[in-house]
């Protein structure tokens, strides 16, 4: 495994997006992973539609009653992959732009599919396996506890105490061996996280969190997706 790795250096990550005042983080996390997987399989970086998931994806998790994707009221990345697999794929962002609300009807047009899912899987709570899947399959959809993110402005976040109950979905795009942590005069290895709160939050829209002990639950809900090689219509 390389000591440092960042998919942004390899052109597999689109620009930072903004979910606005809508609990649709799960769709940004899932779309980010599919954008990376699609890039790996086609060599083309295409911005895909979160709004299609917000409007059309009401996939439920068969194991848990009431666990259905529901637009601005929350969802799950693996259910979003399941929906995308069944629906045939996602449209481009430009063909189905984001509105930031879930009051519209589903306007999915099969003839405009730009990327499709061939399969998806969950990664074990093992940091080496997470790093290996990241390097091999592209950016990963991860859950996290966002308690320290409301006031975060930069640096490597490594709270002494952080609950591991997950309430936010983000995209893991890379990792670094040494993030200088002034207070403790030592370097801390960290994950590089793409968030969906716009570029005027955090480090140009990104968040760094220390690795090593499943801080804020960041290692506990990791999923990877593989894209089909589709010819856009």
């Amino acid at each position, binding site marked *: 495994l390389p000591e440092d790795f960042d998919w942004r250096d390899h052109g597999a990550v689109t620009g930072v997006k903004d*979910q606005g005042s809508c609990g649709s*983080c799960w769709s940004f996390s899932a779309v980010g992973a599919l954008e990376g997987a699609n890039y790996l399989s086609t060599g083309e970086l295409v911005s895909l539609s979160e709004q299609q998931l917000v409007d059309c994806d009401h996939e439920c998790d068969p*194991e848990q009653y009431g666990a259905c994707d529901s637009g601005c*009221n929350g969802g799950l990345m693996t259910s979003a992959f399941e929906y995308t697999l069944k629906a045939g794929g996602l449209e481009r962002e430009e063909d189905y732009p984001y509105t930031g609300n879930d009051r519209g009807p589903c306007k999915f047009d099969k003839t405009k599919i730009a990327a499709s899912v061939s399969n998806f*899987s*969950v990664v074990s709570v093992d940091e080496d396996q997470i790093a290996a899947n990241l390097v091999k399959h592209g950016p990963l959809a991860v859950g996290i506890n966002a308690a*320290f993110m409301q006031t975060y402005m930069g640096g490597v976040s490594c709270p002494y105490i952080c609950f591991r109950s997950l309430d936010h979905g983000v995209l893991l795009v890379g990792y670094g061996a040494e993030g200088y942590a002034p207070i*403790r005069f030592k370097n801390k290895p960290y994950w590089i996280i793409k968030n969906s709160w716009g570029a005027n*939050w955090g480090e140009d829209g990104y968040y760094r969190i220390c690795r090593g002990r499943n801080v804020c639950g960041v290692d506990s809900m990791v999923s990877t997706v593989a894209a089909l090689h589709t010819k856009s219509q």
Partner: protein
Amino acid sequence: TYVVSAVVYDFNSDEDPLIRQVVPDGGVEQETDNHLLNAEHHFTLFKSKYGKTYATQEEHDYRMGVFKANLLRAKRNALLDPSAVHGVTKFSDLTPSEFRQQFLGLKPLKLPADAQKAPILPTDN
């Protein structure tokens, strides 16, 4: 009373946390005055930086109260998370529950039990 008081420094570890004075010589009263003056100043900067406007004076005053509470929350987070920078962000006029409601959105569930497990990958070269 937040868990800051529960933060246990492990003095045996090689991490030697700095003990920093958090209350100026003027004591808590001065600290409180400074905080209020600062809060209004910061709130003015916050509104202009993020283009925030509020429909009524009541809403404005309420949001300023929330903002002050969030300044203290940022201070506490900085104590609990000293290797990151915490402060005023575009969410500083939202209560934690408004923030969770409007800007998160992960169903608080475990991963689906039937999801396929990724095969174990080699990690040594």
